[in-house]
């Protein structure tokens, strides 16, 4: 019986390590290799169980200008476009500053949408 495996490129840092995740017969992760730091191993496991991503975008202020935003922590990859809908439906104050929260706990993910640029 062949062992199932999955090859990944680590996105934790710019090194972009080639990762390999091997699964046992039950589909459970048996071994992770190729990482060069603990975060790489964690990434490989998360990517094969519940992948997450940080989303960055912009929100419009009441005066029409745009400011940059991000999720305060990674959110489930499957929810990227849902979170984008939320980001696109909000209108920020004209005087927002870096670090301000524009949406708290977006879609129950536990992540806030926070401002990342000053006007």
């Amino acid at each position, binding site marked *: 019986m062949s062992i199932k495996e999955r090859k990944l490129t680590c996105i934790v840092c710019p090194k972009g390590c080639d990762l390999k995740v091997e699964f046992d017969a039950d589909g459970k992760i048996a071994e992770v290799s190729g990482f060069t730091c603990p975060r790489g191993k964690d990434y490989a496991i998360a990517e094969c169980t519940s992948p997450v991503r940080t989303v960055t*975008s912009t929100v419009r202020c009441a005066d029409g200008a745009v400011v940059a935003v991000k999720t305060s922590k990674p959110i489930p990859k499957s929810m990227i476009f849902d979170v984008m809908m939320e980001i696109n439906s909000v209108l920020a104050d004209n005087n927002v500053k870096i670090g301000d929260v524009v949406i708290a706990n977006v879609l129950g993910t536990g992540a806030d949408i926070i401002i990342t640029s000053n006007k």
Partner: protein
Amino acid sequence: MEKNNVKRADLVIIGGGPAGMSAAVAAYEKGLRDILILERDDALGGILRQCIHNGFGLHRFGEELTGPEYAYRYEKQVREYGIPFMLNTMVIDVDGNKVVTAMNRECGIFKVEAKAVILAMGCRERPKGALNIAGCRPAGIYTAGTAQKFVNMKGLMPGREVVILGSGDIGLIMARRMTLEGAKVKAVCELMPYSGGLARNIEQCLNDFDIPLLLSHTVVDIHGKERLSAVTIAKVDEGRRPIPGTETTIPCDTLLLSCGLIPENELTKASGIELDRITGGARVDGDRETDIPGIFACGNVLHVHDLVDYVSEESVIAGEAAVRYINGEKSHGMALKLVTDGKIRYTVPQRISSAEKTKVYFRVSNVYRDVKITVKAGDRVLLEKKKQKVAPGEMETVILTPDMLSSCDKDETLAFSLEDIKK
């Protein structure tokens, strides 16, 4: 406005992006106070202001920041230290005597006489004209950075159906950004058989959204009279020539170009500073000093970096060295010349003028696996470093220690080469 429109400053820094701000902060922390940053845009931060994605700062701050957040860390420092800066100020000339001519709304055209100058103007993108693609010239063709400015700074959508030529990082980042804003990115074409972008960007910007990356492909025709209506792409052979019969026409309203960055060295050239043919930036020593004493260069104006963290690191070197120069303490004891074998395309610095610890940055010309980076002085091997894989898109470094350097004759040549490791 001062009399005759002439000002003075110990250190003038041209450019208030990550390079200029890092250099300014480093110079301040070495005790220099009379610093002036000249920035052409209406805010500090440079191109990072439009790079709203995350992934910056892991090396520098140990955390993942977005571009504007990274820039803001330095802006806060500049403001806290009270380092003077002028915005909306365009430098139009730097001469060999370190007189900087600039213009802005408040002062008109004015001059600043400096003891030292740091060039930190950044880089620009290679435009369509330089690529010489045949076809029409409709609206809808932009460099990835122009599209990034429209989307992230102006809140405007340059198009809805997108093809991207070139897999540089900005192109990859814009593939994701346009997708998130509802555009359909149909393909990313890359002329070379490998991507020029970071592996992680291919993963999270293309693969996450099922955007195809077509290696060894280019755009051979552009259609549409008013607005772009389609592009024709084709496979290319090993000589990068389009292969007849492989053409496919893809309907789209936007073509984004991400085909390389060019250090912005018009001022450098005009001042008579010697440039490196490969990097497009000045030739510098370990202190990032150009061949005109007291004029330094750092960041993307010197050579194009992958990571802003390295820009900051390099700019600290330039900022601190400028202070040593102003204080009459800069050493010129050695004149080591760094040469490369072609597989290694270039090094920065290109020469070393003191036996202090020196980090040498370099890029390779192709993807090589299982190689050994070797630095030799004559027959003596100073350093060997093994790498599983090196690629043009990823800058490499080696560190030359004071021990290694002081073992060299003062005008010796250091040869950088890449050799296969037999398995």
